[in-house]
């Protein structure tokens, strides 16, 4: 009995481990990420041609590109604009309400051991779309490329950028 059960159990365990390890890449870009409000990149970046860094303002100065503060939304969607972001603008007109926060859901994540930073990529003239795809055509952002080390390195190789592990992994 044991002669069959033990190898089978072992094989199932190792197999399960392998399948899980390959299927569950928690930091892989996620498809179908729902957002709390129906925000459209197509209308903002595509139709209205708002530059990416108008909202993602930290990209050229920091590791993170930054999610725009609610204040930035209100800058355009003030209460003078009909049909603006009602739930967003209300706290600005109605002081009795607590400050409104939008809890966006992440589309791109990197693990802790990757110290990616946007800043040098912007200054090297890499277009946002090269990694993030044609966001200006998407109503809801979905990843086009899987941001893994192969993806990074293929571009670094092409552009003659550093391929030193230590630059990102430290």
């Amino acid at each position, binding site marked *: 009995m044991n002669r069959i059960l033990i190898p089978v*159990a072992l094989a199932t365990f190792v197999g399960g481990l392998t399948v899980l390890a390959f299927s569950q890449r928690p930091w892989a870009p996620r498809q179908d990420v729902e957002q709390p409000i129906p925000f459209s990149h197509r209308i903002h970046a595509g139709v209205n041609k708002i530059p990416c860094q108008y909202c993602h303002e930290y990209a050229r100065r920091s590791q993170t590109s930054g999610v725009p503060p*609610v204040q930035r939304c209100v800058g355009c969607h003030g209460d003078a604009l009909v049909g603006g972001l009602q739930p967003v603008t209300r706290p600005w007109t109605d002081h009795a309400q607590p400050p409104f926060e939008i809890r966006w859901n992440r589309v791109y994540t990197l693990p802790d051991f990757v110290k990616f930073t946007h800043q040098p990529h912007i200054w090297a003239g890499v277009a946002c779309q090269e990694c993030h795809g044609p966001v200006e055509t998407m109503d809801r952002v979905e990843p086009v490329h899987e941001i893994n080390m192969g993806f990074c390195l293929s571009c670094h190789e092409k552009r003659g950028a550093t391929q*030193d592990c230590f630059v990102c992994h430290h």
Partner: protein
Amino acid sequence: MSEGLSRRSFLKIASAAGAAAAIPGCEPVGRELIPYVVPDENVIPGVPSFYATVCSECSAGCGVIARVREGRVIKLEGNPKDPISLGRLCARGQAALQGLYNPDRLAHPFVRRDDGRLRRVSWDVATRELLGRLETAAKAGKDRVAYLARPQGPTFDKVAKTWLSAWNSTKAVFWEPLARPVARQAAQECFGRSDVPVYHLDQAEALISFGADFNETWESPVEMARQYAAFRAPKERRGKLSIGRSAYVGPRMNVTAAKCDEWIAVKPGHEAAIAMSVLYVLVRQGWVSPNSGFDIGTLKSFVQGYEPDTISQQTGVPAEAIVRMGQMFGQAEGAVALAGTDDKETHVAAFILNAVTGNLGKTVVFLEDAPASPYSPQADVDGLIQAMSQKQLDVLVVSGVNPVYSMPPAAKFNDALRQVPLVVWCGLVPDETAEHAHLLLPVHHPLEAWRDIAPRAGVNGIGQPVMQPVFESRDLGDLMLTTARAASADSKTVPWESMADAVNASFQAIQKQIGDKNKPEDFFAQALRDGGVYAEAKAVEVKFNASVFQNKPKPPGAGPDLALAVYPHLFLYDGRGADKPWLQETPEPVDQIVWDSWASVHPETAKTLGISSEEVIEIQTDQGMAALPALITEHVRPGVIAVPLGQGHSAYGRYAKGRGVNGFSLLAPGALSATVKVRATGAKGQLVTPLFSEDMMGRNIVEAMSIEDLARGVAPEREKAPGPYEMYSAFKYPTHKWGMTIDVNACVGCSACVAACYAENNLAFVGKDGVASGRIMSWMRIERYAPPKDQADKAPLLYITPMLCQQCSHAPCEPVCPVFAAYHTQEGINGQNYNRCVGTRYCENNCPYKVRRFNWYKPEWPAPLHLQLNPDVTVRGAGVMEKCTFCIQRIVYAEINAKTENRPLRDGETVPACAQTCPTNAITFGDQNDPQSEMMRRRKDNELRAYRVLNAEFNTLPSITYLRELYHEKGRA
């Protein structure tokens, strides 16, 4: 399993569950992105902000710059504009963060119930309770409320006094255990001044320290270490290349003594006699400066009876040593004597030595408008205890001190405390005093609050809050101001609304005083940016009070057969550092013990008393008894048992509680030594050290050469590395090749670099058991070796060196890694890819320097200690090897900034944490490809002293070049 769950599905579930459990650390990090509603215009997420503030760990008053990421402070560095720290910080300053984020900090106000247990209350309830009791006390009569605290800056102390006056009281007592009042008493006696002078060791050629641990805990360690390094640096003095000559007189060879030319081992209490005897030599040899205005006759009669021979007989110190010190001191152009003992006589004698050699105003300078002592006289402390025990107090507020732990037993503070109906404890981590308190209030850490400091004339630092409070704490100053305002009808008696207001007002007064013409808000904003207002203080001429010579100190006598010498621990100091794991885990540089207290016993004494190594001994003084393991070492005088302060806590958080003994419990008031009886118990204790060996076994781990050889231009002969055995073609370094030059002669072993490395690189602490198993995680350490006995004449007292990854160009660690986790970067660093490492530990095994560290445990930082973690550095998990990276995250940060500004990286723009914090600038970092870099110039300028560790043995081609320690050859001028 028979019902509904087949074997197949069971195995499926089991394997899935097992697999899920087998890949920990893969849980996705936060899946949500929450933007600011209104962004702070000074905060860019991902980019650090820097705030100038002050360090409150000791009374030295260093200015610091706090690096803040996403609203939390992650690192402290010295403020380069501050004249005391000059941009550097000691280990205790670095570890202040662990006081801020300590997981055992009181999180809410608590009230002690009648059954002795604590009940959590809201701030409203706590404040109301306090107010009610204060009002009753104020009505009951005068001085029924008292305040016992450490001085926390002139404004804070003023606020405390104002607060007391609202309750009809003047009983403000400013106290801390190691305040050394005798130094001020001696200054009063000799010069009629209540302040202590500032010292300029760098202006001296000779130095004698009578028990002053100036590189460790005495007065202002960062500044003193910097000056001492300048004093010991080789330079032309009177046409000859030389280094300063120094001697340390004291019972234990601590790291200060180890960096001197001579350690004169004396019994505690004999320092004054030695100082007097040195004075005798000066007077007899006619080395009294003619300009000093002393009457030789008076001096002669004053030193009568202190002939070196007589003193030698009484103290056991060789007469030649005393004569030698006299010669060194008297013939020097610029000399300085320091005193750090608990008796006034030594301090007076040191002042006399400085005065008769004409060094007042030169190496020892009194400043105009020096702030008065922030401490209350001892009579006030005694008066407070008396009032407490006679039930004359209704409310006692304790802040920043731990008297139950650090008052000597004879003061009977504990008994007195029980007579106080309401003890209000205001602090961070609840300590022994908090155990006796009725109302416990969590107050802000100094990094969360407004403070100012005035450590000396001309230096006024501002301590601004650098982040939002971590816990539900309030600032004690604010609390005092609001309660005082609630009590007094008109706002004139309490002119400030908050501490911020009060500090601002103080700086407006300073502005007026210095006659600054800017708008007050501009002046304050500038002061905030600079960390304070710094002005040149004028030196003042002092007259020596000749009446000192009428009180001749008593001859020393032989002293007790067995004496106890208690000394402040370099890191734990008077016990306040014991709650910080970085300080507990950094080995004391000479004895190299961690997480414990130990009794240093000389081998001869151990033989007489029958003590074996690490045996628990019972120490009995007339004040108390303690049992602790003995460390048998020659770094203590025979007949002396030396015990560090700092441990022996029965409270004070998980890191402090229940380890070692409390040295204060053995001492009489005001004393740091005692007559002692010792009994060996036969029980075996365990002292833990990460040190392998005292002996370098003939290898060149630390090298030294005599200053005489350096002056002659003779470098010691070295073995040449065999070879070349190049198996592979040499690496190319197209841009930078990072390297370091470490001046071992400048290193004083203070271990600030070690603490800075812990802070910068998210190093885990492993506790006593972890260190005992050889699992300490420090990337950098202070190594110390003793010279072999037969070579002691041609060696420094101890070899002390910082040891870290040598970033070899022929690295033994790299080729053995089966997965290329250890690899050579294009900039010459031995990189370590944590995410690639599978933990074979081949690299560690192959490293001749033993600087690679393996994560045996999943590192843990109990919340909120984890808030200190540097987000730019990966937190390594269990099973991963890690090592020094030359602070690659700081290099990358600077490189990206340079690239953004489209310019080459400037020399000095990248500084690793260790080099940044080194008080003596022993560590210089730079590009080996750039011969003009400061690091390479330092190498070239000191070519005769340069060596590379173990290069001759292994041909590893390290990127770190050390500069040899310098010493005076004994018996050669």
